[in-house]
């Protein structure tokens, strides 16, 4: 004989089932409310996410901008450092050229500028000799005694670059065909070209081209000769003065 579950005393308790269903309905209702609430808030949340995204993008842009600014500032700092170094060199070179009225000291200053600031290994300073013609070799460094152009006391011409600069007073930084000079710097007093600094060889390790030393070359062109002339005039005058003082002293004694 067949038996329905309701007939069985071991079957599920109908009251419990009703409670469970009621509980499930309540849960469903809560879930539905939650979904409703979420649906209501979704646009605002989406807007918030979008806003945060924009803020993040803005921050990323600003960070990139700050990084670019930092790179630019670093580059400017390096450039400022380079300029400061150059200005120091120019100041020191000018100072050394004019600090003494001793012709030997002035010659040493010119040599030190050429060697230590320009990186010249071999060079000569020529001063035009208007009386005897040609140019007096006022200073040489790293030039062998047997050098055909610069041995002895005077340069009588023969190098096309040097001759051209002595003639027209133009600074030449490029080698010229038939010339041994790497560069020839005119030495001026006021508007007149009174001599030249001839650079024959640079130090092997010198990294920068001479064109980057234009400021120092211009400074030498403008100041070296006048400093040397002033020192020579002072030295000559001083010698004459001492001679005269000696004579006066002798006359007084006699």
């Amino acid at each position, binding site marked *: 004989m067949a038996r329905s579950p309701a007939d069985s005393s071991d079957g599920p308790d109908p009251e419990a089932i009703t409670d469970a269903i009621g509980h499930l309905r309540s849960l469903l209702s809560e879930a539905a409310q939650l979904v409703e609430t979420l649906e209501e808030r979704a646009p605002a949340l989406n807007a918030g996410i979008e806003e945060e995204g924009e803020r993040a993008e803005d921050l990323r842009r600003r960070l990139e901008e700050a990084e670019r600014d930092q790179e630019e500032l670093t580059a400017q700092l390096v450039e400022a450092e380079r300029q400061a170094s150059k200005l120091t060199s120019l100041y020191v070179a000018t100072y*050394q050229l004019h600090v003494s009225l001793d012709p030997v000291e002035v010659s040493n200053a010119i040599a030190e500028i050429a060697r*230590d600031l320009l990186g010249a290994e071999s060079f000569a300073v020529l001063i035009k000799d208007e009386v005897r013609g040609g140019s007096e070799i006022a200073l040489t460094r790293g030039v062998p005694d047997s050098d055909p152009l610069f041995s002895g006391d005077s340069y009588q011409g023969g190098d096309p670059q040097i001759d051209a600069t002595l003639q027209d007073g133009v600074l030449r930084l490029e080698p010229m065909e038939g010339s041994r000079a790497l560069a020839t710097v005119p030495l001026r007093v006021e508007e007149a070209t009174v001599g030249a600094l001839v650079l024959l060889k640079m130090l092997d390790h010198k990294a920068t081209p001479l064109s980057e030393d234009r400021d120092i070359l211009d400074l030498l062109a403008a100041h070296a000769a006048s400093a040397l002339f002033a020192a020579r005039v002072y030295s000559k005058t001083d010698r004459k003065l001492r001679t005269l003082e000696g004579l006066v002293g002798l006359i007084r004694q006699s």
Partner: protein
Amino acid sequence: MKKKILVVEDSKLVHRMYEMMLRPHEIVHCYDGHEALQSLGDHPDIQLILLDLNMPRMSGLEFLSRVKADPVFSKIPVVIVSTEGKEEDTQRGLEAGAAAYITKPFQREDIVEVINRLTED
């Protein structure tokens, strides 16, 4: 931080360059190796030496070997600053005990970086 630096160099121009470039460090100026050895005795608190190689009376390398042989001064870092720029010149200087080798013409940053590195407390 302010350091006390001995400059051994025969060029007046380079002395003035250091004076300008290395402010506010204190500089003791010497024009040859003999004078520098004397100065080391007078200034035991020297923290670094900037040394030229080609000098009258005593070469830079001879001065360097004397400094390195003296137990009192051997720990002072010596930086050679020279127009001699060949690889073998650098090698010789470093083998003689120099802490660094800089060639002339130099930039301020070359010297400052080496001084900062070698005198870190």
